């Protein structure tokens, strides 16, 4: 009985059922496979999250993003600059209560170094409907190299709770051919 002590005091010496040994071996091998597949994807896969991160003060990051937006602004939508950076240029996205700033216009099939950081609380970069989800922290500037593979308008929602305006926090990336 599982609720009373084992009858055989030397239970460690009892033989193990074949079916149990078989399953332990299968499960262990499957675990090994899943472990090595994560490593393998860094070599064979096209979707790996960069770990390139720098410490930065919120004020310094805000300044960098403002300079970037001013330099490559092409238009304005509801008071927010629409920025079209040249291909290969560093791109900055700022998370704050409660917007992703500025709006971006990228080219399909081109790679961009995207910088992400927050100047207040934690936020969650959630690109839809692509479904790429990345945590954004204040004080940490993360750089990912992103290559859009389809054209169209893509929304950015916030999926890390950031206070009462959390559900109003959005942004946009437009991808053109």
């Amino acid at each position, binding site marked *: 009985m599982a609720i009373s002590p084992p009858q*055989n005091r030397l239970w460690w010496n009892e033989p193990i059922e074949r079916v149990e040994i078989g399953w332990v071996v299968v499960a262990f091998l499957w675990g090994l496979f899943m472990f090595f597949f994560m490593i393998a994807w860094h070599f064979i896969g096209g979707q790996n999250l960069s770990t390139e991160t720098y410490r930065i003060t919120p004020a310094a990051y805000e300044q960098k993003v403002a300079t970037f937006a001013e330099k490559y602004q092409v238009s304005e939508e509801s008071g927010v600059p629409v920025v079209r950076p040249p291909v290969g240029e560093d791109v900055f996205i700022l998370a704050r209560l409660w917007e992703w700033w500025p709006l971006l216009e990228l080219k399909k099939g081109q790679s961009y170094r995207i910088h992400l950081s927050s100047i207040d609380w934690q936020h969650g970069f959630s690109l839809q409907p692509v479904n790429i989800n990345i945590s954004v922290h204040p004080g940490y500037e993360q750089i990912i190299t992103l290559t859009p593979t389809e054209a169209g308008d893509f929304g950015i929602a916030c999926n890390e709770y950031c206070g009462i305006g959390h559900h109003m926090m959005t942004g946009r990336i437009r991808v053109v051919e």
Partner: protein
Amino acid sequence: MTAIDVSHSGLAAARAAFRTCRFTGLKVDIAAQRLIMANAVAAVVFLAVGGLMGLLVALTRWPAVHLLPSEWFYLVLTGHGANVLLFWIIFFEIAILYFASAVLLGSRIATPKIAWAAFVLMVAGAIMTNVAVFQGDSSVMFTSYPPMQASPHFYLGLIIFAVGALIGVGIFFATLVVAHGERTYEGSIPLVTFGALTAAIIAVFTLASGAIILVPTWLWSLGLVAEIDPLMYKVVWWGMGHSSQQINVAAHVSVWYAIGALTIGAKPLSEKVSRTAFLLYILFLQLASAHHLLADPGMSATWKIVNTSYLMYLAVLGSLIHGLTVPGALEAAQRRNGYTKGAFEWLRKAPWGNPAFSGMFLSLVMFGFIGGISGVVLGTEQLNLLMHNTIYVPGHFHGTVVAGTTLAFMAMTYYVLPLIFQRDVIWPKLARWQPYLFGMGAGGISLFMMGAGTLGVPRRHWDITLTDAMHPFDLPSGGFLMMGLNGLAAVIAAAGGILYILITVGTVLWGKRLDKGEAPLTFPLHKQAATVAEYGSHATVKLPGTIILVSVFFLSFVLYYFVNWKYLSEIWLLR
């Protein structure tokens, strides 16, 4: 000095009052029994509060209903997490720890007065945090990530609760020492106690992590500490947040074994394999903090891979082993009980009308298929990008904590009531249906939230229509459908939950007393549960049904794993 110790412990042992359970023959310490009752009652109270909040959350996220205004939604969601994930589950776990030590070992409980002090601390802490939440300026979610700040007594309540729980865990360890010293049992501790010991060891790690991060955060909220690093907070906080879910796993797996023994006389196929599986939990489960940092800056890929996989999935291996040994033990017992036809007569003729059995089996199946598989997929370094912080995450952990742990604890209650409270379960017909109702609802909310998350619906989000946003856009309509179905499933789960509360409270107050007379139990124990003469590892037996079940599980696992890789390979390139 030795002489003083002996006489002192002799005195305490002599003072302890026992009764002998007429159903199981177990020797029950009255002091332990009272403590188990108090902790179980507190657990049910917080389940009622937290469960109601959960229903309000689900009804708000049901797009067609959208019940609460945004301020209330975030407030209630914060309270829901704290009340059910911490207070309900940990109060019940303390009850299980006292049961698995004092009652199963036939021992007196160590220092009952200190155990009562621990209980008072836990109640005080839980109430303090609830007050902070309801005052409205601590809607920071259960995770309370800085730099967002709650009132100081939000953190203080959690700290006091954790201190109380830690003392409770200490009482469990002390009771093991007392039982061993006073030789109340022979040989090794029972498997269920061993599982509870696993849970207790993990609890020490968990509660220590909580103290390490919540104490400075509390000081920060008082203005005494200048800054809490958000990334550091996440690493250490999840040492509590995720590891506490591993206490649940160890505890509810123990409950599965216990109910198997009580209802059909199941015994482990092999003590060695089942105990090793528990040992793997102790060694590897604590690495799970990484599950919450896979999509975060600052951590290396090596750190993520090693930690998220619990070092090559060795803790997952523990759960996979229980996934075979629990149904295997049930099948072996049923075959011994005479249900030997075909592959599945043992399962068809299982006591499905006994809510303890049906709840346990549903918990086992849903924890494996829903919570377990989704957990591994979600915790895979790159696949996490697809679901991180979407409502897939709550989908996963409702599969583990609600369909798994909560349902298992509900099932166990149907034996806690007659054996500890000594009251027969009232409304047996309704009780028979309760696990199915709650299980169906819990399975539904898990699956529908996972579906919605796969379509990009964010978690902890008041308005997925994004109507008031500056740059609105449309989330897929399938996501809205899923959230509606989630609302329906939540109503079913709530009906099952309310029924559970009514039956439990009703039984405690008005159930037929079992301590007088010879009345039988409405939901009987297996005849072998009452005799401890026949125990130990089970002799060799063929288990075709279990092999089929486990094969189906494994195929689903592999298939779902690769479907997600396929999905990942189709998104934008990222490096």
